[in-house]
């Protein structure tokens, strides 16, 4: 199960959004990955997400596999949509 998403917050996936994603993903049993044009990282790893270096405008594919894949996918997707609550 996967879904495309664009980084919309001004600062891109810096430490705080990365932490939010990792924390959110850790709440699900599914395997959740982020794919930046072939570079794949586990959503449960803050370091992995930061090293993706995805700035504003980057398109990513979120994929999830497991029992709660759909919920997990939606939760991560929503974080991007709400721009990680950056004011």
């Amino acid at each position, binding site marked *: 199960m996967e879904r495309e998403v664009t980084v919309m917050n001004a*600062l*891109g996936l*810096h*430490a*705080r959004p990365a*932490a*939010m994603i*990792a*924390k*959110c993903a*850790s709440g699900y049993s599914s395997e959740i990955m982020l794919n930046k044009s072939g570079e794949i*990282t*586990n959503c*449960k*790893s*803050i*370091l*992995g997400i*930061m*090293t993706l*270096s995805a*700035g504003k405008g980057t398109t990513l594919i979120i994929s999830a596999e497991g029992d709660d894949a759909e919920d997990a996918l939606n939760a991560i997707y929503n974080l991007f949509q709400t721009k990680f*609550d950056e*004011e």
Partner: protein
Amino acid sequence: MSSQEKVFQVTPISPGIAIGKTIKIGTSHLVEHVPERFVAEHETANELEKFHDAIKKTKNSINQLKERLKNKLATSDEAIFDTHLMILEDMALITDVENLINTEHKAAECAIFEASERYVKVLEDIADPYLRERAADVRDVRSRVLENFHVNEGNSLEKNISGRRIVVADELTPSETAHLPQDKVLGFAVNVGSPTSHTAILARSMRMPAVVGMPEELMNLDPDTEIIIDGFAGRLIINPSDHTLDIYSLKAQEANDFYSSLLEEAELLAETQDGFIVQLAGNIEKLEDVGELKKFGGEAVGLFRSEISFLSYPAPPSEEEQFKLYKELLSRMDGRMVVVRTLDVGGDKLNDSVFRHQEQNPFLGLRGIRLCLKAKQDIFRTQLRALLRAGVYGDLKIMLPMLTSVHEIVEVKNIIEELKTELKKEKTDFSRKISIGAMIETPASALLVDHIAPLVDFLSIGTNDLVQYTMAIDRSNDLVTYLYQPANPAILELIGRTVIAAKENNIWVSVCGQMASDPLYTPLLLGLGVNELSMDPASLSIIRRVIRSLKMSEAEFLASEALKCKSSVDVRKMSVELLRKTVPEIADIIIMENER
């Protein structure tokens, strides 16, 4: 001093001026190399254990450091430690290390270094300066973990610094910065870093002047050479001439004057330009806090968190123990007002030996006055008796937390009357006219305040819980902290109602939550008509300055406009504008800290 003065342009990362001799700190504290070492297959389990053990120990020490710096750092700065904790818990990193141990039979220290090095390298290559800075965090955390393996023995900064010096280093990690002894370090100059680094944020919190991008030759200077760092203009001066020294001494004086002038104002009344006086009080939890409160000019204890003394005893303290504590508190306050909040805990706070409840959601559970009235009335009665008795020795007031109904107040008042009769019979001395106040910290109590106010002698608004319960957010859940908005018009409405009810019933009203210590909200709270602000003692001086610079008419106008706003963003904007106009020196400081 025959050497020539040299001036360098550097990047300022923390404002202030430091003049002094240097102390060089090498980069030996950072582990930059670990010799390759392999173990036999049967030893890998042991290496894994060593690895997990080291992670655990490092987590503990970070948590301790976080605790130690708790009141010294802004909440946003504490996030540094959370980042470090998240790195330690990083699933991918842990898996990488485990794999290196399991499949390649690498020794634990070696595996840790190698696995983290990959991330360091990638992060260092990222164009975004903010992300690049995170490489320093990984190296910092890694070095802390590797300390457990003694690859890099003994380098205590504290021990190496003699006299007051300016620290010169190639790089300082955030945790090293946090460890710098503030009484010995005048400031620091580092080669690597940026204004957005955690090190810079920490330096600003610690009010330690700092610059980055220092010239290479500074590392090779005789430590007795005098230097100046200018954390305002971004200058570093080696061997300053007498003339330069004069100019900078004056400039340093001016900068330092600001903070010390705040302290000198400790004796001054918190009076607005147009003559309106606000009482400034302190939130404290121990007898020893009274000294700090007086130093910053606290006029009263606006909130004594009595549960803290309960938590330090293995069993709830006896009536006699509590009586002595409250009596001593009153005596140390020299007759000034002391408001004691009765036991305010939930099942989550007091440990199992006393309160053995398992609650799904302790913040919505049996806590505060509920616990006192329902489950633990014996403990509550003991506390009230101690308070009634201590009330003879000064201006003691009782404050009830977590109220949601009028009935709760009536019940407490009945208990107090019973206790008074008891004490009378026993011929024990007690205060016959002790004041009782209601904390307004739930939406229900704020909405019922017209019925509550006639029953009590004062009101105190606990903004932390009021915001939490009104906005329906758990303050410890960082996914929703963006909704922690004290300036949300919904909150202002509740505060406004409370103030009006207090005025109509001729009683005073205080604010004792964190909102009271944020200069941005001072004009708002004043304008809404609050009589007292109670906060952590260290915040008193800055709040006093804000009040003394302000006109009540401006504050009232701001408050009336704020009540019409539709969002907290609009309210904050107006508040910032007013602060910029009235106390630019403080606006500069808080805007800088809020920027990120």
